[in-house]
């Protein structure tokens, strides 16, 4: 477990992952996407037991093995070496997607290229002509999992907003995102649009709104 590094402002990736982990209830079945989402597994709060599924056929995924103990036949969806916890089980791909498509996974945590005001998600393709399209399990996850959490930097490296009115990249799914965790804020996608539920320390609502491509509202404690 690496110590969260200090960011210039807002949350670090590790802090974002911690915030996601804090919102995962005891006993939940969770699928983590490749990239930042993988960090979430490190921050399950003490006293909670969370079971991680990886769609390539393992329920009860544990942390990475110690160096030298990797098994090329025990990997996660990102094709990295993992371990299996006590109480794990292996299954084939069709059974794995029974879990996913059938609505048995409580939460999936995914990265994003764009999220729209209505919860549309784009995270699989830039749609550029020379890109090699590759979708993996992303469309199955957003269609089948009970709650879809997105964890992402609030804007791209060049400063383009990732939370937008309409996605311009090809969609992974329509109206599928429940909550977005960024370095600046936690935002729920509600029937009334995106609502900022919490701001990172030192970050103002205006600061977030300026870096967002759609109108946000702020949660009112009523």
């Amino acid at each position, binding site marked *: 477990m690496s110590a969260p590094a200090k960011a210039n402002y807002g949350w670090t990736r590790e802090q974002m992952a911690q915030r996601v982990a804090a919102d995962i209830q005891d006993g939940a079945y969770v699928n983590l996407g490749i990239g930042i989402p993988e960090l979430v597994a490190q921050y399950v709060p003490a006293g909670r037991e969370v079971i991680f599924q990886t769609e390539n056929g393992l329920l009860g995924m544990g942390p990475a093995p110690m160096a030298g103990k990797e098994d090329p036949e025990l990997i996660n969806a990102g094709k990295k070496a993992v371990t299996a916890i006590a*109480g794990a089980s*292996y299954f084939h791909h069709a059974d794995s997607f029974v*879990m996913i*498509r*059938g609505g048995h996974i409580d939460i999936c945590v995914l990265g994003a290229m764009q999220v729209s005001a209505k919860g549309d998600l784009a995270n699989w393709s830039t749609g550029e002509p020379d890109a090699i399209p590759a979708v993996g399990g992303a469309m199955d996850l957003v269609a089948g999992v009970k709650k879809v959490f997105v964890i992402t930097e609030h804007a791209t490296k060049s400063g383009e907003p990732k939370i937008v009115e309409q996605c311009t990249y090809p969609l992974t799914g329509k109206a599928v995102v429940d909550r977005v965790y960024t370095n600046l804020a936690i935002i729920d996608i509600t029937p009334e649009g995106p609502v900022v539920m919490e701001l990172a320390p030192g970050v103002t609502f205006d600061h977030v709104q300026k870096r967002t491509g759609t109108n946000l509202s702020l949660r009112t404690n009523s």
Partner: protein
Amino acid sequence: MIDKRAVSAAAAVADVHDGATIMISGFGEAGSPIELIHALVDCGAKNLTVVSNNTGSGRVGLAALIANRQVAKMICSYPRSANSMVFPELYRKGEIKLELVPQGTLAERIRAGGAGIPAFYTATSVGTVLANGKESRTFGERDYVMEHGLIADFALVKAEKADRHGNLIYNKTARNFGPIMCTAAKVAIVQVKEIVEAGELDPEEIVTPGIFVNRLVIVAKPAQESQLVKEDRSYP
């Protein structure tokens, strides 16, 4: 900490409500969760739709549930086994409904329900009365009927062993409908002979991963339906 053990069979089925759809595992007596069914008799929920391959025998288990007038409708493939008299009697009197489904279609509908598949096509029953009223369609040169996924509010399932996560293994041909029913029910309630520590079941050998199981009840020495029938027992 995850621990799916219920304090008793009665507690495990206590929230089964009137009008619920219940899947009950078993092929004949093999895999039939008699003790859970008897708890459901005690619970008294009425107007149930029951999905199970058969309709029970004698006056115990599923037959007792039917005899107790808790079942409004059966969805099954083979409602008349040896020693089955409760269902036939009520059916002839028009006091219970029957949706007859070919066995493989029944299994696939349950699997589809658990897999988030609302409908699929099968050649089974094409050209028969069981295809009446069903949408049909040609793929390639063959005709198929459309069948719908089945889901349930609860499943009552018998397995052999579990761990506290709800991972299950079964015994021989008592496996039958158990694994797919666990996937297709909102609440899967499973009776097992024994609950072992997490990690004691080989992860390669687990048939039902715990994600599909909600409640576990230990019945160390389950009754065998045929033995109860031979002894002319009835429940309650």
